[in-house]
């Protein structure tokens, strides 16, 4: 696939969560696990819950201070990979 993958909230995830002082607990509707996430990871999930989008659109929705676009891309790639490993998000089938 040559074009950028479209990320989305995994079907079935309702994002039940609570945030306290920068840390969040989140219930995973698919695996039944409870995750400890930071507010940024939760914000990424909420952004994807709003609409499926490629990583570029996702990065544009967040302001970064002083980082280069390459740093941004690397950061988002890492966080998306981690969230996908937890079955919270996946990519739309091509």
């Amino acid at each position, binding site marked *: 696939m040559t074009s950028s993958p479209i990320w989305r909230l995994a079907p079935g995830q309702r994002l*039940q969560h*609570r945030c*306290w002082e920068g*840390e969040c*607990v989140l219930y995973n509707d698919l695996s*039944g696990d*409870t995750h*400890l996430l930071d507010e940024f990871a939760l914000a990424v999930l909420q952004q994807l819950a709003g609409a499926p989008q490629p990583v570029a659109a996702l990065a544009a929705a967040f302001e970064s201070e002083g980082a280069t676009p390459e740093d941004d891309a690397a950061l988002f790639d890492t966080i998306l990979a981690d969230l996908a490993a937890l079955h919270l998000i996946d990519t739309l089938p091509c």
Partner: protein
Amino acid sequence: MLTVAALGQPAVAARLRGRGLRLQTGPFITCIRSASPALAAALGRMYADYPVMGEDISADFDVLLRRPRGLRRLVKPQVYFHYDGMEPFQPLPLAQIYPMFEWAMNWCVSSHAHSWLVIHAAVVEKEGAAVILPAPPGSGKSTLCAALVARGWRLLSDELTLVRLDDGRIDPVPRPVSLKNGSIDVIRAWAPHAHLSPPVTDTLKGTVAHMRAPADSVARAREPATPAWIVFPQWRAGAPAEMVPVPQARAHLRLAENAFNYSLLGAAGFASAARLIEQTRTFDFSYGALDDAMAVFEALLAQRR
């Protein structure tokens, strides 16, 4: 209301040997059957104030403590715990029948009572506020619980905190407080008037004894409580009494780790734990002297007034 004491020991023993003694503990009715005179005597002493029910309401749990049949009876006296035709535990020496009974009662609730989030924790209440004391082994939770109860805190439970899934209040299931090894002597000294069962040695947990629940706690067994604090105790010799707040997200996870059925309850378990964290303040609590600990808990109450 008929209690174990009012029923009288001969009738208690007869029901245990026959169709079962139906004992009410908090929200549960347990049908207990056993031919053991030692168990009958222990129940008569430790559960004197507890209601005994008739056969017109179905029991929640069915506990049978029985000796093996045949020659093994003579060689090595043992007792089995049977539940619905299964044997959840290995058999234990007959001398341990009363502690086994208490462990069996805990098992029944922690394995089945999925209308509550069941936390492995003691819970006591005073002035309308409940403190939950989750209990990894070695934390000193039971000693602390027994000490608080001896100083006027109402006992809701020493092992099983039942958090209602619908409204987050705590339902009591007050039963004798279990004490191990050194804490038996500590509590004997701390509360000379408390009734302790005869210590049983060489159990899997060492030497074990149980402190009878105060009559007032048993009388109020159907009165729920509102949680105000979650306190993770850690006894350390010589440590000053110190409460350190736990960040709430971490507290949620630690609470979940200490709950028997958190994962089984799924989304409802998550919501119940989250509500509990929002309603309460959570602390790590280290202490070395019970007097210091009492003062700290009274200070918590004072802050609320």
